[in-house]
């Protein structure tokens, strides 16, 4: 193969790996709020992503509310998807998840994981198929003029051109902003500390006067919202159906596990890594196998190194 083309492809894969990776990082961060803080296994995480995508779709395409914002519309819509799904997450926890997690199940043999798995599987099924009923099975996309525009950077030996899809790049930047905002929330605010304390030691947190149940609810709603924003961003460059969640569930869990359970930043790096893996696998593998590659990577991680690469302290595997 022509060395120059090979180099160009690799460089582009790197760049797009970075860009996509940031978005994956965002969704992994959302999951880590739930999986990492609450230690709740949420099967429906991918479907929350899907809801975010459809929320953005409705805001931009169906209701046309974002047209006043021009090309920035879809990205603002993605951000708005956050609060919408926040409310749903809040309700989900209040009525369903709180019964199978938190202090109620803290002492039991498997910490309530079986119940969480089953209940969230039910939620996933309902969201996916409910989505099918409400939204139909036609693949949708939230396209903007930016989706097909790209910055071309000429650089390097020969005529190496790096393609930077504009929409993806902006989505990546938005993702980064949200991650930073979330990090600030968790590390610098009283609420964030309370969430982390409740995750670290629910009993001691109760002694401090923290309502652990409410802390978990906030964490869950926040995690849902963040994942939904990621979904809205994904919508700007990928076409999607109500069943998109399944593909992304494994990506998210792979990223969170790779990055180490308790760490928000670790989850981000994990997601970034998975993004890289995916874009690089596109160089060597046909499209159908790219997702399979991610699943295989996930299996390898879970079997070989369940504590991840960036775990903050001795976390259970």
């Amino acid at each position: 193969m022509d060395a120059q083309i090979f180099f160009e492809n690799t460089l582009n894969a790197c760049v797009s790996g970075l860009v996509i990776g940031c978005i994956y990082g965002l969704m992994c961060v959302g999951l880590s709020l739930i999986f990492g803080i609450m230690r709740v296994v949420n099967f429906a995480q991918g479907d929350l992503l899907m809801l975010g995508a459809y929320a953005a779709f409705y805001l931009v395409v169906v209701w046309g509310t974002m047209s006043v914002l021009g090309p920035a519309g879809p990205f603002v819509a993605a951000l708005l998807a956050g609060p919408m799904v926040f409310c749903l997450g809040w309700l989900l926890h209040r009525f369903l998840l709180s019964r199978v997690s938190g202090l109620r199940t803290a002492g039991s043999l498997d910490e309530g994981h079986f119940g969480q798995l089953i209940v969230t599987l039910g939620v996933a099924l309902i969201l996916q198929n409910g989505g099918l009923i409400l939204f139909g099975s036609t693949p949708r996309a939230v396209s903007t003029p930016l989706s097909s525009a790209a910055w071309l950077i000429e650089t390097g030996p020969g005529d190496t051109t790096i393609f930077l899809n504009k929409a993806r790049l902006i989505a990546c930047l938005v993702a980064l902003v949200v991650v930073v905002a979330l990090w600030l929330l968790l590390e610098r605010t009283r609420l964030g500390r309370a969430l982390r304390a409740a995750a670290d030691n629910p009993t001691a947190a109760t002694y401090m006067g923290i309502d652990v149940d409410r802390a978990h609810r906030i964490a869950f709603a926040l995690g849902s919202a963040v994942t939904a924003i990621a979904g809205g961003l994904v919508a700007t460059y990928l076409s999607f159906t109500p069943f998109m969640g399944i593909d992304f569930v494994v990506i998210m869990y792979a990223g969170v596990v790779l990055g180490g359970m308790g760490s928000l930043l670790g989850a981000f790096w994990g997601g970034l890594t998975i993004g890289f893996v995916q874009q690089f696998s596109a160089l060597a593998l046909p499209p159908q196998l790219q997702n399979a590659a991610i699943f295989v990577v996930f299996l390898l991680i879970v079997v070989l190194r369940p504590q991840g690469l960036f775990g903050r302290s001795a976390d259970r595997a």
Partner: protein
Amino acid sequence: MRPGAFPRLRRDALIFAVLLACYVVLSGVVTNSYYQLMLTLVPIWAVMGLSWNLFSGYVGLTSFGHAVFFGLGAYTVALTMNAWNLTPWFGIPLGTVVGAVAAVLIGLPTFRLRGHYFALAMLAFPLVLLYVFQYLGYQEVSLPMKREQPWAWLQFTDPRGFTLVALGLLAMAFGISLAVENSRFGLTLMAIRQNELAAAAAGIDARRAKMAALVLSGAIAAAAGGLYACILLVVTPDAVFGMLTSAQALTVAMFGGVGTVWGPLIGAAVLIPLAETLHAELGNIIPGIQGVVYGLAIILVMLLAPEGLFWTLRDRFARTALPPELGPAPVLPTLTLRAPAAAGPVLRVENIGKSFGGLRAVDGVSFAVARGEILGIIGPNGAGKTTLFNLLNGVLPSDTGTAWLDGEVITGRPLHAICRAGVGRTFQVVRSFPRLSLLDNVLIGAYGAGLTGAAATTAAEVALARTGLAAQAQREAGALTNKELRLMELARAVAGQPHLLLLDETLAGLGREECEAVLSVLRELRAAGMTIVIIEHTMHAMLKLADRLVVIDRGRLLAEGAPRDVVENRAVIEAYLGRKWMAKTCST
């Protein structure tokens, strides 16, 4: 076979036969082709449910990926029929083998994983295969239609033929599940589910048992998949490897009842017609109604009746427990101890130690236990006593030192091997299998030690008699009092015919009289030749029971000797009450 199994087996088989006959009649009567298809699908999903139950229900590891076996079975049939002209009558058994092999390959890496990681990993397998098969170009594999002698190719002009074959498969799967449920193997699986550690301490090799269960489960699921392919005549990756397939297997079993043969039958009989009917009636207007139904079903089940319909109904309508019969005055049966006729101490420990991170939990402890002795291990809270037991028993590996049982080294050997060498252990937190009878609970101990059949039953009955629980043998363990539970733990350890018992806080939480009852059991066991090492906090009981005491403080051996002496020992008093106490009381 477990004791009492045959009458249960006969009853269950009879009920099943009757239901089967009714079903055959029903399928003869129904003429609408859609409903006929539904009648065929119900047994197939019942088989899937039974297969899921065999593994996840009995063992307790939730599998979200049983579709992997289903799909492999389906594709084996479809591909062999196309490529080699192989009739599905052979193709399905071949698929079964493929499923079994897949189970081994899947089980090997994933059994090490805990609960939710296992579930996630199992989820990934069918999804990987889904993509791979799509890539390989098998998006849609049709089974060629055979015009001549279609029955030789498992194709029937009359759809009722499929129903009969499906019922045949169901009968086989039911039979296997019934056999497992009533066998030693099944009891072993249930023990693993309830408390893998205690099961291992009772001598069970958990990995092998889990693997056997998964292989059986995978094989049955693959058979179901193969038959499914024959009925639908076309196989697509989504249909057989998709998440809905795994979810259906799980839902059907969970809804109907986990851990019982009847559960998947009930679940399939209720959910499949429901979902299929809704799909038929509303499928055009509301596509995906099936998924929503299943989703709702499992959420409701999980919140309202987490063990499934079968158990909830049974609890509601169960007869009250039979009152315990007052047996004849207990003449204690002889206790068989598989003890080697050796001289010297039963247990010798030298310089054993263990660190956790920077903390030295057990530090250079050495002592010996004479044959037929009752040794008490005492010490302040957090001193390392349970850790010491865990080192002796094989639960944890030691960093330093050695322990000998009858002169043979036991440090470094796995838990179940040490049990089979003759060491019984009870744990601080008693975990019983609440829905099994007391006898079954105790049988685990006998099976774990390698006993089988009648010998196992006898050992269990002897153990129950010695602990005074013989009259309660048929009661469900969930109904026992605290004292009875502790005695049951003891009986389970004794049923393995050990000659050394390690008891961890057997008397915790018992009142005066209850304590006395347990103490007398222990004394009688010793009189029969048992050697006992017991950790306790209830000091007054130890003074009455133990021949010798060993005091552990902060991981080190502080004192040993006759109880009265140890209690007067200054260092011991200081460890319990503090240095200043010694100073004060000595100066008065």
